[in-house]
């Protein structure tokens, strides 16, 4: 009992000095939290400048963000995105041209600028970007093939393709190695 009384007295003495509460409790917890925030997410981060922010550009960004293993972060300008890529705050950066929606709706080609740092995950992220881009460009590619086969204007080919209702013949399912469901996200600390 004496031991407990001494322990109690010492603890009261230690924690009466408020700074000790910080160093014994708050600081370690804060460091753990910070470590978790900084290193706990193994996903690749992609910075995005949406440009005109039309529905197609939004759709593309959402398609990227919904992928397991990838997080998107919006940036206001190309220069701020470039800075973030250079500093390694994001693995890669995507600048969607401001007339992206208009070009695609008109059946024209649109371009996306991809900021990549050679020593980052950018080449891997690019594969995911290309997958999202090819999904979005699927109908337009089909329309171009229709026009080359049948002739006529691209607008009429787009109209023809848009009228087609077809479910994707090939689906993709991500599974865990155990054969079970793949968790949506899992940090390195889990």
């Amino acid at each position, binding site marked *: 009992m004496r031991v407990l009384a001494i322990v109690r007295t010492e603890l009261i003495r230690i924690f009466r000095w408020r700074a000790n509460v910080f160093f014994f409790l708050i600081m370690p917890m804060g460091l753990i939290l910070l470590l978790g925030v900084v290193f706990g997410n193994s996903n690749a981060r992609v910075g995005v400048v949406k440009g005109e922010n039309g529905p197609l550009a939004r759709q593309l960004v959402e398609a990227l963000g919904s992928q397991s293993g990838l997080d998107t972060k919006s940036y206001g300008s190309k220069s701020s995105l470039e800075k973030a890529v250079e500093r*390694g705050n994001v693995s890669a950066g995507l600048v969607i041209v401001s007339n992206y929606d208009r070009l695609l709706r008109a059946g024209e080609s649109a371009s996306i600028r991809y900021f990549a740092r050679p020593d980052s995950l950018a080449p891997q992220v690019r594969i995911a970007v290309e997958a999202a881009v090819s999904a979005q460009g699927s109908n337009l590619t089909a329309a171009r093939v229709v026009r080359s086969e049948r002739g006529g204007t691209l607008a009429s080919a787009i109209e023809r393709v848009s009228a087609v209702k077809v479910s994707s013949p090939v689906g993709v399912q991500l599974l865990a190695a155990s054969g079970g469901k793949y968790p949506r996200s899992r940090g390195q600390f889990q």
Partner: protein
Amino acid sequence: MRAASLITAKDLRQRLRDRSAFLVAVVAPLALAFALSVTISGFSAGSQTYHLGLVDLDHGRAASGFYAAVKDAPVILRDAGTLARARRLVKNGKLDAALVLPRGLSAASRGGSSVRIEVIGDPKNAIGALVARSFAASYASYVRTIAVASRALEADRVAMIRIAGEVASAKPPISVGDISTTRKNLDPKTYYAAAMAVFFLFFAVQFGISSLLNERSEGTLARMLVAPIPRLSILGGKAMTSLALGLTSMVVLALTTRYALGAHWGNPLGVGALIVCAVLAATAVTALVTTLAKTSEQANAWLAIVSVVLGMLGGSFFPVAQAGGLVATLSKITPHAWFLSGLQDLSSGGALSVIVEPVLVLLAIAGACGAMALVRIRRLIEP
């Protein structure tokens, strides 16, 4: 000025004699910078080749499409044999992920029934799973495009083969153009040398301003106040002690880590400007916290807490800016983050103009905290 210099000289002699300043300003940051730089090799997953497995249950032409797709990517695709083996290899980490091409996949692109590609991934290797899933998704988009074009053209199975060829060779309507950027983050050696230097700077400068409270409790402040010394000289002397200790600490650490650890601080002029501004900011923050305390013990405790919190948020222990969100925003209120950000910009060999923003922010912090400290510090030097 002479009185201020005498006070500074006395303080510095005192600190050199008891070795406390040397330990806090040089030994501790050097030891930690060395330990952290040798244990932490990098902060982000660098580019690497991903190893994917392929389980071909289709035995058709689809597999060759996947092998062709990975040709220009940082990916090695190899036959994983059976599904069970692929799962085992992914689970053991021998493969980053695996693709299972189902029976009938090749036929699906020619109007066959719908199928599903399974991607086996390990949640601990999110990027591997992302890469494999992206290849599968690209193939699925390709087949969908064929299906849409074929339906629109009311094509038969023979025509579908031709359409598949056209889709494969069609120029994609959305192109992704690469723009290579330079690397502007510090290597671990330089990062921890700079991060520890600025972290311990906040402890080093405490020996100056906060010693006013010691002088008060020991009665020596009263003696100074009755002596023919202007009060401003007392303050100036203490501030100069802080600045001298801060500057010495930073310069010694920069030079030692440069030559002993091989840290690359960047353009000496730019580094010098950043060091001076960081020392001013640290001295001003320390002065402000000191004026809020009633006793030297309280001041020491508060200063330690403030230094540790600012250090944690400012990226002294790890680069918090990479976390994004609230943490990255909060880090911008710390002088540490601006000092390190200035060094990052300098590290890529940029012109001195790249440090204008961090220098101005550090000076603004110094000005704001210094002004508030000056208003409050009168309380400390009243007899």
